[in-house]
């Protein structure tokens, strides 16, 4: 557990370092995630090594969101004034994103060359 936590923190720190060193616009934790994915891919880090802390954090993800959500209490006045536009913007953009993502994926899948499909490929499309 301690070792896996150390690895996660180290990769986050590495991500922050990249951001500070070269003015990289991507947040430290996101860069850290990509670097860890690469490290897992090339076998530098074994999945079992990061698993204990990663599992705990990902299972607790909902809890970690709560204090940030509570921060909304400071913005009651903004929400009251912009309530309708916010609700409409969130609803419309979520539906649009669902449809565009779904259709794009399906369109690309259906256009895949037949020789690369395996015998069960059609059940996916």
């Amino acid at each position: 557990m301690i070792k896996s936590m150390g690895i996660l923190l180290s990769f986050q720190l590495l991500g922050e370092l990249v951001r500070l060193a070269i003015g990289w616009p991507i947040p430290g934790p996101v860069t850290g995630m990509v670097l860890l994915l690469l490290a897992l891919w090339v076998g530098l880090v074994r999945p079992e090594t990061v698993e204990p802390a990663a599992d705990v954090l990902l299972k607790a993800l909902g809890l970690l969101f709560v204090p940030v959500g509570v921060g909304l209490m400071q913005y009651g006045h903004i929400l009251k004034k912009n309530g309708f536009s916010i609700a409409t913007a969130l609803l419309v953009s979520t539906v649009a994103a669902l449809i565009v993502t779904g259709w794009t994926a399906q369109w690309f899948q259906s256009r895949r060359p037949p020789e690369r499909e395996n015998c069960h490929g059609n059940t996916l499309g």
Partner: protein
Amino acid sequence: METLWGNPLTALTITVVIYVLSLALSNQIRTPLANPILLSVVVVILILSASGVDYVTYQAGGKLLSFWLGPATVALALPLYRQLPLVLKNKAPILAAVTAGSTVAAAAAVGVGRLLGASHEVVLALIPKSVTTPIAIEIAHSIGANRELAAGFVIATGIIGAVIGPECLRLVRVTSPLAQGLAMGTASHGIGTARAIQEGPVQGSTSGLALGLGGIATTLIAPIIALLVG
């Protein structure tokens, strides 16, 4: 009471206990609207308001939890790694769909918000609304948007996606499990992924993948949209 709130332990304990209770309740009710995050946020805000405690005081304990959103984001590399074979087999559909979906999510939110006269502060905070909270907070920070406001939009978007996602996708004939999962993860991040898992194993895993990829795509898109918003 005042001396109790002065100790970060109070805010931390209340948050954890409320979350555990909310989780138990949402497992009982089993409707996407009874979302444990939404329930916890509402109950904690009610408790703070009733006790006359402000957000800054609460954050002394709250930040002990939000700190871990950074390492949790790094930890997303593990589920991503586990989906690598599926990902490599479907590189083109995945990349195209997640990029298109992330762009549309941010652009539509900004467009509709502006059209309906939302304030500049609100419009900026709408940009990262479809990505998972830790990434959204980082994006909000980097484009100069209000972090708490952005996080609130993220949570609201997640709940909307979890409630209407699968029905909406069936309505527009998105039948491929891979496409369904990608759509849920791209449009409504972790909260949508929780719902996608109930739809099936392919939907759940590809939604988790889209959650990570959509976060990266939006990180790259957000500064451009922020520039356009001005």
